[in-house]
C-alpha cells in the first residue's frame, strides 16, 4: 500500500503537469530545414549519397566522421573489457580445456543447428540492405552475435573453440572489419578526393539496386566488426566462474 501511494502521487503530478503544459503546446507538424535537406538530397541532388534510406546516408556519409569515432569508442570499450578480464598465456590455455558436451535434450540441439544457419542469413540480409531498408551494419552485427550465443547455450563454449572460433580469432575478424572501414575511408585520397568522400568515387548503382556508393562497404565491414566483437565478449563471459576464481586467486 505504501508503494502504491508513491505511484499515485507520481501519476497525478505527471498528468497534472501534462494537462497544464498541453494548453499552450502545439505538436510539431513541420520538418526542420536541415532534415528537409537530408531527405531531399540523400537520393537526388548535387550533394547526394545515392541511398534511398536517409538515416544510413547521414550515419555513414554526411556525418561519417561521427560514426568513425563512435566505432572507435566501441572498439576501445571492448579492448577495455578484454583488459579487465586479461589472462596469461597458460591461463587462457587452461580456460580452453574442456569437452564440448550436449547437456540439453536432443531436440534443442538439433533446432539450434538449423536456427544458426537461418540467423546468419537474416543478419546478412539486414546488413547488406542497410542502404535500402531500415537496418545496417550495427543492427546486422548484433543479430549475427546471436548465433554464437545460441551455440554457447546449447553446446557450451568449448564446441565453438574446438571448431576454430576462439577469442583470438574473433579479435582478428574484428580487426579485419575495422581495417576495412579505415581503407574504405582512405580510398578517395588515391583519386584526389577528400577523406571519407562518397560520390562520385564509388559506384552509386550496380546490379539493378542503389548501392549508396561507399555505404554498402561500410555496412559490410561494420557488420563483421560488431558481430566478432560481441562474440569475443560472449566467449569471455562464458568462462566458468570456478576457473576464473582460481585464476584470480580468490577463495570464497
Amino acid at each position, binding site marked *: 500500500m505504501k508503494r502504491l501511494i508513491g505511484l499515485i502521487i507520481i501519476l497525478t503530478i505527471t498528468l497534472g503537469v501534462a494537462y497544464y503544459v498541453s494548453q499552450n503546446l502545439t505538436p510539431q507538424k513541420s520538418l526542420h530545414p536541415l532534415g528537409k535537406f537530408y531527405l531531399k538530397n540523400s537520393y537526388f541532388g548535387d550533394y547526394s549519397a545515392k541511398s534511398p534510406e536517409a538515416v544510413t546516408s547521414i550515419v555513414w556519409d554526411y556525418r561519417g566522421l561521427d560514426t568513425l569515432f563512435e566505432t572507435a569508442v566501441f572498439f576501445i570499450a571492448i579492448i577495455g573489457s578484454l583488459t579487465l578480464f586479461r589472462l596469461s598465456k597458460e591461463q587462457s590455455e587452461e580456460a580452453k580445456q574442456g569437452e564440448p558436451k550436449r547437456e540439453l535434450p536432443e*531436440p534443442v540441439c538439433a533446432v539450434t543447428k538449423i536456427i544458426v*544457419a*537461418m540467423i546468419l*542469413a*537474416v543478419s546478412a540480409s539486414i546488413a547488406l540492405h542497410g542502404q535500402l531498408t531500415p537496418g545496417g551494419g550495427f543492427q546486422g552485427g548484433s543479430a549475427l552475435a546471436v548465433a554464437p550465443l545460441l551455440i554457447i547455450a546449447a553446446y557450451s563454449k568449448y564446441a565453438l573453440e574446438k571448431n576454430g572460433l576462439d577469442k583470438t580469432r574473433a579479435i582478428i575478424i574484428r580487426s579485419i572489419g575495422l581495417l576495412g572501414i579505415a581503407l574504405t575511408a582512405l580510398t578517395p585520397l588515391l583519386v584526389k578526393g577528400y577523406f571519407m568522400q562518397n560520390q562520385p568515387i564509388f559506384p552509386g548503382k550496380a546490379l*539493378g539496386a542503389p*548501392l549508396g556508393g561507399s555505404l554498402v562497404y561500410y555496412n559490410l565491414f561494420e557488420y563483421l566488426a560488431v558481430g566478432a566483437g560481441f562474440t569475443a565478449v560472449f566467449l569471455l563471459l562464458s568462462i566458468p566462474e570456478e576457473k576464473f576464481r582460481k585464476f584470480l586467486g580468490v577463495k570464497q
Partner: protein
Amino acid sequence: MKGVVSTALLTFVTYIIFTGSITPYDLVTGAVVAIVIGLLVGKFLVENDAKALNPLRWFWSVVYFVWYFLVAEVKAHLDVIGRIITGNFEPGIVKVPLKVKSEYARTLVANSITNTPGTVVVDVDENYLYVNWINVTTENPEEAKKEICEGFEKFAERIFE
C-alpha cells in the same frame, strides 16, 4: 563437402524471402552469403545431401505443415482453452515410445508434440519421449502414444527417414 549444397539452399531461400525482392543485387549477394554459410556450418547440419534435396520429402513436409496447422493445432488449442475456462486438468509425465531413429525425425516429432498446447516434451532418450501431459487419461505407453502423437511419426518417417 557434405551438406554444403543443401545448407546453402536453405540459407539462400531464407535470405530471399526475408529480403522480399529479387533484383540482381539480392540474388548475387544472397548466393555469396549462402555459399559462405554453407561452407562454414554445412558439415554440422546435413549428413546426406541426396536425402535433403529429394523433392518428394519436401512435398511431404508441405503436406505435413498444412495438416498440422489446420487439424492438430486447432484441436489442441480448443482443448487447452476449454481447460483454462473450466479448470479441469490432471497433469503428469508419461513415457511415449518412439520408432524413428534419425536425429531430425525425432526432433520433428518432439517439436510437433511441444508445439501443440497440452503436451510438452521434458526429456528424450534412446527409445522414449517423456511428455508432460496436461490431462493424463492413460499410463500405458502404447495407448498414450495413440493419443499424443498418432499422426506425427508417420510424417516424420516420410520426411526424414
